């Protein structure tokens, strides 16, 4: 890829804390205008990678380039064109919504006049017009996240780095954030987001990288990964002895995973599986299209924690 079209490039990046390896030989590239997801369970190294992109953690080995600047040595220069939504809100709780934008804009060297000029459109974008003079401590969780998003846009960044942007939000608030992020993508912003929500990754990401234990275990488009690793419908079976059922349906399954009490049967012809299970009491059977959760389960043999 031509460097001017690359927003983020990681090459063989390693990071350990003590003797615990957090990021292991990780490489990936994010093109400008792309929404790229880092998907993985807690402890996969997602937040460490996000912080490394900002120069807040230095890699032990490897090379990181963000917006054509080497990181961490010139991370400060790169950050001028980056907006950050951190995993945990770090808004100024005693300040009003408007004051939060003012204070944060000053960190980018913006004048009060400049900040006042852009604040209305940011508040409108975040659907917080009516809350401009409300103290942040009085806002709901969803509003705080939207303010964090508005704050991240104050310097009109090319790239947004978002660490679990919707964790802890209710479904309504989450959908509103997703809708706002799609608007940003339509405006040509590049987004790197970390998430452990498969649905979030499927809905938003053009491409994603599946991480486990600091290693990349898959990379590609969400549909492509699902086709490549699963490629057929899934029958979920609850409420029987999984191992006994496993033997029963094995002839009709391309692959079977057992996780806890649930049996995931990947079957090109699900009706044949149903026939085998007919007449068995106490079973609940759910047939559905495959998703990224199945990809993760297939690749790691375990479910991603929620």
């Amino acid at each position, binding site marked *: 890829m031509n460097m001017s079209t690359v927003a983020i490039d990681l090459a063989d990046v390693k990071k350990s804390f003590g003797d615990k390896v957090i990021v292991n030989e990780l490489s990936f590239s994010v093109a400008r205008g792309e929404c790229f997801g880092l998907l993985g369970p807690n402890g996969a190294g997602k937040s460490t990678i996000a912080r490394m992109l900002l120069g807040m953690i230095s890699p032990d080995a490897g090379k990181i380039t963000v917006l054509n600047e080497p990181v*961490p040595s010139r991370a400060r220069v790169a950050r001028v064109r980056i907006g950050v939504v951190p995993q*945990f809100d*770090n808004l100024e709780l005693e300040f009003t919504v408007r004051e939060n934008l003012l204070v944060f804009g000053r960190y980018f060297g913006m004048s009060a006049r400049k900040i006042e000029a852009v604040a209305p459109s940011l508040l409108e974008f975040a659907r917080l017009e009516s809350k401009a003079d409300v103290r942040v401590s009085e806002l709901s969780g969803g509003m705080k996240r939207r303010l964090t998003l508005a704050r991240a846009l104050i310097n009109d960044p090319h790239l947004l780095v978002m660490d679990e942007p919707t964790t802890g939000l209710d479904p309504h608030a989450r959908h509103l954030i997703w809708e706002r992020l799609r608007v940003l993508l339509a405006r040509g912003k590049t987004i790197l987001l970390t998430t452990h929500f498969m649905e979030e990754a499927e809905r938003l990401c053009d491409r994603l990288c599946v991480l486990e234990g600091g290693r990349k275990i898959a990379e590609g488009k969400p549909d492509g990964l699902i086709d490549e690793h699963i490629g057929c419908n899934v029958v979920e079976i609850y409420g029987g002895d999984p191992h006994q059922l496993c033997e029963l349906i094995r002839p009709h399954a391309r692959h079977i995973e057992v996780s806890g009490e649930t049996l995931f049967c990947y079957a090109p012809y699900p009706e044949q599986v149903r026939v085998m299970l007919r007449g068995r009491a106490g079973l609940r059977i759910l047939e559905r299209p495959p998703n990224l959760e199945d990809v993760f389960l297939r690749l790691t043999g375990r479910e991603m924690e929620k």
Partner: protein
Amino acid sequence: MGESYAAVMPANAYNWIAVWRRNFLAWKKVALASILGNLADPLTNLFGLGFGLGLIVGRVEGTSYIAFLAAGMVATSAMTSATFETMYAAFARMDAKRTWEAILSTQLTLGDIVLGELVWAASKSVLAGTAIWIVATTLGYASWPSILYAMPAIALTGLVFASMAMVVISLAPSYDYFVFYQTLVLTPMVFLCGAVFPTSQLPGSFQHFAGLLPLAHSVDLIRPAMLERGADSAALHVGALCVYAVLPFFASTALLRRRLLR
């Protein structure tokens, strides 16, 4: 390694102002309570010790005890207000409130933040020290023009103790450890540095040791100013205080880099 330390130092001469203004905005919301809180303790000491003990002590170094003590209280209040602002408020912004984390995602460096916090803490020292000075001067224990010399000395004192407290917060795992710095460093300094009684009362070896402590240099600048006496070796005191302000600044920034930016 050198390059990565250079990357956390202040990026330019003015980035820190945004941090100072953030703290000023937060302070404005609670200004009255903050001022009263900062004044109560040193004024209690000044009047309690000054009038009470002053009756017994009589005159000290050719002046009333309360006039002698007033300069000590100005220096001490500058010391404590900068220390407490840094140890408690700045530590909260670094730790629980995640304010520094938010700032570190902008174009500011860690050094910009540390510098902004230090100047802010020094500003609070100026406020606290000047307030005591105003009370003392109103009561006739100092002259009004003496503020011209006292104020820069107060500001420098604030910078010194903010800078030293920054080293403490860069090392302390939690609030619980601050008490050691207060009881083992600050409180002895008040008694060793001539804030409440002349250092000439100390045993000889203590006098030499005390002469090296930063609060002694502050007192030796502020007291002559308030009592309208020429300060002996003012340049030496200013130089020593500058060293006490600058070295901990670099040390704390390097230590905070290890703590926050691994």
